[in-house]
């Protein structure tokens, strides 16, 4: 099947890589967690005030991150998205490339499946290469993480060099230990305070 070979990559732990990523955030970087296990894992890695957790609107993690990045150009903004979610809004990659948003980092956790709905395979399991999609959309700094050390290296670059960066990782299907507390108003207000937009009353 076309694409099968290119999608055979080292499978890493989403939980471990999420912790590694969050551990590198020293400058109040904003993080937008896409729906599903992506944001459960982000929640489990520690509830920073600069984390935003989506409870729906599948596919909008990168557009939301782009909006934050436009509003706060001096802050690094990271979007975490699943492969199934990315497939819903592939057009957003072209929008981001057109704007050449320098402070934006996109991370895709690709397990080739719609895990939260029962693990049905996504096209990313076989034929779709998400880094190929990103490159074809005009995002030059688009990479597959080969292993954990390479992931660390890519994130370090993404947090220091001009972006936009697109980093994809083949991840496992392990269930996150934590579940996001689903209170949208609290999530939004905490995030806005974390970004210095609002002060606590």
């Amino acid at each position: 099947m076309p694409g099968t070979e290119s999608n055979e990559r080292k499978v890493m732990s989403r939980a471990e890589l999420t912790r590694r990523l969050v551990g590198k955030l020293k400058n109040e970087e904003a993080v937008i967690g896409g729906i599903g296990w992506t944001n459960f894992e982000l929640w489990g890695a520690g509830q920073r005030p600069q984390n935003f957790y989506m409870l729906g609107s599948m596919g909008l993690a990168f557009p939301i991150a782009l909006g934050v990045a436009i509003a706060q150009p001096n802050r690094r903004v990271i979007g975490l998205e699943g492969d199934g979610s990315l497939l819903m809004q592939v057009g957003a990659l072209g929008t981001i490339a057109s704007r050449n948003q320098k402070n934006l980092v996109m991370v895709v956790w690709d397990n080739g499946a719609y895990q939260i709905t029962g693990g049905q395979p996504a096209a990313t399991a076989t034929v779709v290469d998400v880094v190929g999609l990103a490159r074809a959309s005009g995002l030059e700094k688009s990479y597959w993480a080969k292993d954990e050390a390479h992931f660390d290296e890519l994130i370090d670059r993404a947090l220091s060099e001009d972006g936009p960066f697109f980093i994809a990782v083949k991840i496992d299907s392990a269930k996150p230990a934590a579940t996001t507390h689903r209170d949208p108003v609290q999530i939004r207000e905490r995030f806005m305070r974390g970004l210095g937009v609002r002060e606590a009353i």
Partner: protein
Amino acid sequence: MSSAKPDGQRAWHEIIKDVLKENNVRLATYVPDNVLSPLIKALHADPFFTTFCCAREEEAVGVVTGAWLGGTLGVVLMQTSGFATLPNVLASLAVPYQIPLLMIISERGTLGEFNLGQAMVCRTMRPALESMGIENHTLRRLDEVAFVVDRTISQAVSTQAPAAIILNAFLTGGKVEKKKEN
């Protein structure tokens, strides 16, 4: 100005642009539309605004939502059929997270519509807005534009709630089928 009315009154899109500016709406995302094109062009031409096209209306909503979280107020421009793609993101993002998401929708599907697909889509718009409790106003008269747009923006921000302004064909002229010459 070339787009001014003969009596000196300014065009709807000039008024809307000025009111957006007065309310510090600095970001405009859109999916292209023929009726909205003079407004889109005017926003692009004014460096006060960051204006860009998105691939889908949902994406445009995501960008404006993110910008609000980061402290910048924005607006999404679309036509009726584009609004019809939005109920999921309005119901799961803008409404529950209390985002003052401003939507300006050019109304197609009524008053001389020639495409049945557009006419059917139009009938879903107000019921969808009402079902989510989203404040919406339809602009038909030029003399109401400044007041309605200004008050809609200020209420959306104060009450932290999305709002829609629908531009009816009475205001914009809409889009009509070219008559065949006999």
